[in-house]
């Protein structure tokens, strides 16, 4: 069967998750989010976010305990379901599968809640900041990930993203604009 890019991504995520391969999942997170900006579909963004979240799940020993095996199997089952249906189902139904995935992950964290921000929100925040760094506006990044602008801005401010691009106008020239404001 022809494997579309989306299905290919799901299969790669499934493989990475089954093999508990954090590196592979992180790499997929980068690749998929780039594709998401170019193709702009909600399922692509969601896949990018979940590649990150799952990379975190497989890297923390607290999640890899025997008692979580059932939940891990459930996650694998949802990914298999997604692989089968991601190209066939309407987007709204596809997104329901992502919500199932989200619920499973939230339940895993409920067992051992350590942070105010859960893994799902953290994954979305990182994705939003990456999208902003890649060049989409903070409003678009907020819209597609569901993360507040305030959170994205605060996160982005602590990265090097504003140091990587030369400013089109110097502070000195911007101050000339500012001085006009005070009648100077």
């Amino acid at each position, binding site marked *: 069967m022809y494997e579309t890019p989306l299905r290919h991504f799901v299969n790669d995520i499934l493989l990475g998750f089954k093999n508990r391969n954090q590196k592979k999942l992180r790499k997929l997170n980068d690749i998929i989010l*780039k594709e998401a900006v170019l193709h702009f579909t909600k399922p692509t963004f969601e896949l990018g976010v979940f590649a990150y979240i799952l990379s975190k799940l497989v890297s923390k020993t607290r999640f890899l305990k025997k008692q979580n095996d059932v939940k891990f199997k459930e996650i694998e089952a949802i990914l298999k379901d997604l692989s089968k249906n991601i190209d066939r189902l309407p987007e709204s139904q596809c997104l329901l599968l992502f919500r199932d995935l989200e619920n499973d992950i939230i339940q895993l964290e409920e067992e051992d809640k350590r942070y105010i921000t859960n893994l799902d929100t953290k994954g979305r925040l990182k994705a939003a900041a990456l999208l902003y760094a890649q060049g989409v506006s903070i409003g678009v990044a907020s819209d597609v990930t569901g993360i507040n602008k305030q959170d994205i801005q605060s996160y982005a401010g602590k990265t090097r993203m504003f140091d990587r691009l030369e400013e089109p106008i110097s502070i000195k020239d911007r101050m000339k604009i500012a001085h006009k404001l005070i009648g100077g």
Partner: protein
Amino acid sequence: MKIYDILCDSSSLISLTDSDLESIIPFLQKKFPIRFLIPPSVEYEMVTRPIDSDLREFLFSAFKIKKDINNGVITKVSLDVDEETQKLLRIANNIFFAKGKPLRIVHLGEAAMIATAKKLDVNTLLIDERTTRMLIENPFQLKSHFENEFKVNIMMQKKNLNDFIDYVRGMEIIRSSEIVILGYENDFFEGYNDLKVDALRAALYKIKYSGCSVSFEEINSFIGTVK
């Protein structure tokens, strides 16, 4: 007396409140005839939503801005710009093309901000957000940035690019970093006495960490010129 207007987006108010530097706004307003304007979308993002949704982390910032609106320090302007906003959104999101598909880079709120500025004939904008600012100031630099990020050729649709450039012609942008410097030049940091240049540098770092798109290099080279 001529009153100077500046239209603020949410990103600049986020940086200022998060850095506890929002008091520069009333400080400057007491000294100069400046009106700090916001469209309703900014009030919604900064005040209404955090309060109504009980977003605990942002509640204090929301109340600080609400206080400034209530005290007339920040002026809300309500205009019907829906049609213009949609038109601008369509243009802005059909300038850059990758693999034959348009890059959706601008959001409704950002387009509404530009449309509001145009309708009000306000030429000075306060924007900390990088993408919208670069799109207005240098879309070709944004194109290069996309090409570096995505490693694909980015095509620019000439008509939409020209329409956008025509639309924003005359608009000038400052960031909250320049507002902080303006405050410094007008004695906002006077209480720091011989530490006031250090305080300015620290305030600029803080505003950067709060998300103002200013680089360390810009800050450091500017501080080097301050007497």
